[in-house]
């Protein structure tokens, strides 16, 4: 199935290119709106809750791959204002289970072609991704991932301290540290994207194809008849629809509750932070599971940090001091030379964690109520493939093979997905 067959045929009112930049520069003409505002219609074929990367991508692929455009994407805030605009935008596919690897690899492939697909530069920099191992058991897990990755054709290998030092000269790879670096899982295709660009590009692509993005539109309740979705009540009025897709990440449980569903989801804040910019010195994404930290450097020169989720569930996004303390302490264990760099800003997003560190995707006991939730700390990198797969499910009514193992029924049936081993921080 082509991800952009219909997409290519769609004309943007103003195609983005160096040429158009210069033209607009000279003529001082205004750029058209990236996406438009609409009155809320009384009914839509599909209502997607959450205008983050998952919701927007689902709409985009509904339009491009299936020609379904009578779609409303509702968000109580603004486009990409939730986890999609708060994550550290790391993209990789070196997971532990074959199903996980195949799924995320499809996402990486989509990301590689996304700038062209969307005519929007998402700045996918594949600088390489390193997951450090500080003890033999995590080194064993890295080896495990590497071997599964290879079988799935993913570029992934365990490397030693010397090679790590070559890739990241700032890394303290000496033996006499409290957390000696024994090796790392090296994943060359891994890297980062500009998260806002992905959100906006999908929004623009969905909008131009007729899907309607409704910001500042909060879902207040969902009407069902005989366990079948019939309508969505919003802060801007009622929408009749037979299909609702829940793409609200940290808030997913609250939307689920509107149709009386409880799932194995716990919402934990996930914090991130950036430093002031300094000249480029870090040309890889570095992750340490044992030290609960991941770091990369943006083109602007800022270091972007993430860590593990907060230790107790919460819907608070206020951020904590303890997070920055642990983060800094652990980053300096890895790169002692940057102690005088300054932390500029911290923030938090909400993650809906599942017991097996895998998403919950697909149908539910309520007909017409589909979920794309349980995205924990790894949702952004899966945005494109999730959108593609959910769109296929909505359009065909058949659960695509690549998300079959992420079904809700796996919990009562005791078929948990084995990503546990690779999870912890791994992002």
């Amino acid at each position: 199935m082509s991800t952009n067959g219909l997409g290519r045929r769609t004309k943007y009112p103003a195609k983005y290119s160096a040429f158009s930049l210069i033209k607009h520069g000279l003529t001082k003409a205004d750029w058209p709106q990236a996406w438009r505002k609409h009155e809320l219609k009384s009914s839509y074929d599909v209502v997607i809750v959450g205008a983050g990367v998952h919701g927007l991508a689902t709409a985009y692929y509904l339009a491009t791959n299936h020609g379904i455009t009578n779609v409303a994407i509702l968000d109580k805030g603004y486009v990409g204002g939730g986890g999609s605009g708060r994550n550290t935008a790391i993209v990789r596919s070196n997971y532990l289970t074959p199903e996980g690897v195949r799924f995320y690899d499809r996402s990486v492939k989509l990301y590689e072609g996304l700038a062209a697909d969307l005519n929007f530069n998402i700045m996918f920099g594949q600088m390489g991704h390193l997951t450090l191992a500080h003890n033999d058991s995590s080194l064993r897990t890295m080896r495990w991932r590497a071997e599964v990755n290879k079988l799935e054709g993913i570029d992934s290998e365990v490397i030693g301290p010397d090679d790590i030092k070559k890739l990241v000269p700032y890394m303290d790879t000496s033996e006499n540290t409290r957390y000696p670096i024994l090796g790392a899982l090296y994943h060359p295709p891994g890297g980062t994207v500009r998260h806002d660009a992905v959100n906006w590009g999908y929004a623009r692509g969905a909008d131009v194809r007729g899907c309607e993005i409704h910001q500042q539109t909060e879902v207040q309740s969902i009407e069902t008849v005989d366990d079948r979705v019939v309508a969505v009540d919003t802060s801007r009025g009622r929408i009749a629809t037979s299909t609702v897709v829940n793409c609200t990440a940290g808030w997913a449980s609250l939307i689920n509750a509107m149709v009386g569903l409880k799932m194995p989801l716990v919402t934990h804040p996930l914090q991130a932070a950036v430093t002031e910019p300094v000249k480029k010195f870090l040309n890889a994404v570095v992750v340490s599971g044992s030290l609960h930290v991941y770091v990369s450097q943006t083109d602007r020169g800022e270091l972007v940090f993430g860590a593990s989720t907060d230790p107790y569930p919460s819907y608070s996004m206020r951020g904590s001091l303890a997070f920055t303390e642990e983060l800094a302490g652990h980053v300096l264990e890895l790169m002692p030379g940057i102690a005088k760099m300054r932390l500029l800003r911290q923030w938090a997003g909400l993650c809906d964690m599942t017991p097996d560190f895998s998403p919950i995707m697909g149908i539910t006991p309520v007909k017409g109520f589909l979920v794309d939730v349980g995205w924990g700390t790894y949702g952004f990198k899966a945005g494109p493939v999730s959108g593609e797969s959910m769109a296929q499910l909505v359009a065909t009514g058949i659960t695509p093979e690549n998300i079959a193992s992420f079904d809700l029924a796996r919990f009562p049936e005791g078929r948990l997905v084995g990503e546990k081993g690779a999870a912890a921080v791994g992002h």
Partner: protein
Amino acid sequence: MSTAVTTGRRLAPQAGEVIDRRAPLSFRWDGKTYTGFVGDTIVSALVASGVDVFSRSFKYKRPRGVLSATFHDPGCTVQVGDEPNVRAAHRRLAAGMEVSPENVWPSLKFDVGAANQLLGRFLSSGFYYKTFIKPQRLWPAYQQILGRFAAGGVTAADAEHGYFDKRYIHVDVCVAGGGPAGMAAAVAAAESGASVLLVDEEYELGGHLRYGGDADLAALAELRAEVAVHESIEVMTNAAVTGRYDMNWIAVVQRQPGISVQGHAIHERLCKVRAGSLVVAAGLIERPYVFAGNDLPGVMLSTAVRRLVNLHAVRPGDNAVVFTANADGDACAQDLRRIGVGVTVVDARTDANIRRAEGGKRVKTVELADGRRVDCDLLVTAVGWTAATPLLNMAGDRPQYDATAARFFPTDRLAANVVVAGALAGDGSTSELVAHGAAAGATAAARAGHGSEVPAPALARVPHPELYRSTTHGIVDFSEDVSSKDMFSAKKEGYDSIELVKRYTTVTMGPSQGKLESANAVAIMAEAHGVSDFNEIGTTVWRPPYVPITLGALGGRGFENTRFSPMQPWHEQHNAKPLVAGDWIRPEHYGDPAAEVANVRRSVGIIDVTPLGKLDLRGPDVPKLLNLLYVNKWSRLPIGAVRYGVMCAEDGVVMDDGVTGRLGENHYIMTTTSSGAATVWEWTENWLQTEHPDWQIHVTPVTTGYASMNVAGPKSRELLGRVVSGVDLANDAFPYMHVRTATVADIAGCFMWRIGFTGELSYEIHVPAAYGLHVWEALFDAGFDLGVVPFGVEAQRIMRLEKGHFIVAQDTDGLTLGFGADLGWCIKLDKDDFAGKPELVWQSRRDDYQRLVGMQPVDPTIVPAEASQIVEGTKKIVGRVTSSRMSPTLGRSICLGFVEPRLATPGTIVTCQLPDRRRVPLKVIEGLAHFDPDGARMRI
């Protein structure tokens, strides 16, 4: 104040100046040597020496000079030695400072980047989203180039870490801001009997009074004296409250506190404050005006000029245009006249206005709204204030805009333990601000339990012209090079909410984090939307930290727990290779693990197993507990016997294993894996406290109360016979899987059990820890002639693998249920209840789970890497190797691993893919043990 005679740009001595003219300092800037005085900031010293330009702007590389002369001054960020991004308008001069400009590649004067100014119209905000799209393969190259434009200074991989520190502080009242209101609040709180922490960003208390006139200086002296007399006030200057977190958990960063620890000056210190109340007296930040050329060097805020003139005795220019809308602007004009600067006043209150400023490396001409052009080298703007509300924001408030006073004010949404004082609340004379501060201080103290609340006298909201943008477009965010035009076009493109425009243009996202530009950003958005009420636009959420804080200060001294056994000194003397195992440091081996194995199999060896978890269990109900925690049965464990047990979690997944022995009628000792010690203890307490509080059981962790050593090998009995008294070691008297209390090497109160993790006759001795080293050495002395040698964790791993003993979390994973780990023999489903029973019952009825099996490579020389996959066809995974070693005993490679049930039959040949992609056959063996499967050697 006397009229000053000026010498160059340095003014004659004057009241209120903070420089010490008797203490000149020499330093280097951009490769040349300059001098200044103690008390100078880097910038004031350079301005006094005639320097105008301190950096180039981020995107268009325009020259930047002094704007606010504060910590937040966006154009004055420099490199000092190995420290990047130093705020040169704040950092005080030190002798020999090596200061260099940032963002000026290749140099401050000549700058190719300046070509960007011509391209400016093409580099509109977000231009990078619209280009470099095709061909995709060129993006990495484009990205390289973009990367060159990264702002900021440089770091070095080997940069000296510097000394950083942390401390906890508990106070009744923390006051953020040491201006008149803040000082008054601190004094009032102290007089109510509260303990107080008074924090100010500047090097001295006083806020705007410091660079005011004679009356201000007099008032300041008084306030400082009052603060000084109160011992219960701790004053922190050159410090900032960087964050207010839940429940008044407050972060304060102290910069260069002037404390030296063993010769290391503390660079920064993070103070973690738990305060009863927080008084926010952060005051006002002067706002730049948006117009063409507003970022030219020589365009300054009135407060910047007053700081330079009155604090540092520096003459900022010779001919000034002062665009003023308030008293502070007027006072600035006064100051300039006093030092002999020619001043043209443009008074906004008479609807006069400025249109644009022109010039190259410095402002030359100002074009007024009425078309007049005035030449000058200094353009001063005094157009109003941004309320410093970040801390209020962090305390839950969303300040509201008041068009009359032309600034934002706090609302009543504020948390009760946060009180606003001074100019944030309104306008007033010094005495009015002091009165307001005092009331706030008393109220804060009352809410922290001292004295009673005092209603704050209302402060006026003095009408102020709403001045944000002139008729021309100019820079809104100086550190990000974002213009008002950029924001207009962003809005037109649909990035129309303040959050979206912030993300799209990056306005307010730079190093000054909106301190100077946020109000203007909101105003520009309101203008773009054509709304008059800024509150419809809202503001972006201020996030911590209020000012940037070093990673070093956040990281602190890095106290990481490390645990050692009593025998550690001996291990070090004997060249043990340290193995980091969680918190523990253990001997991995003493040089040759294979030889250590051979020696144990041949004669006798000793391993330090102190990290093994040990729980002392007492009480009549202990058997109930054991039956609940373990999958096997414990009801009839005789005194003197030990038994191996496995624990599963409630989901049936293997959690931990170990042996438990019964020492007396109601006395048991449970051992756990070393990594599982804490988990099992908490797990046990959980059951007892939340499910069975009625059970009579006392649990005491005694893990390191005992030094534990395993004496293993055919000669272990003979060795122990020489040092153990009070126990008959004969096989029938002290059989396998039994426990005895004994005196070992004259140490009473030891207990020893006979178990066989290594597969040999072996005794695990647990010795009162303080005597661990003594007993350990005694054993080696006593066994010298028997050839006793120590063995490490690696040798133990090899021997347990030879015996097929699995290791939890290595040979099992997060989804391995009991039966999958070949534990059918000990899982007793006929017990009424035990942790994880339901899942195990259901698993026992299935046959679809992978099995743990012993495997041997057909080629005995190949040792598959652990985690190598068992495969079928091109990529089907049907199992994996979990443990793998070369067996010195068998002279061949041996493995444990998981395979699909259909492959678990002994004799099956499976295919293993090695890391180098070679595929080799492995043979599934009978059972898990490769060596002495029926365990004869352990029972001799």
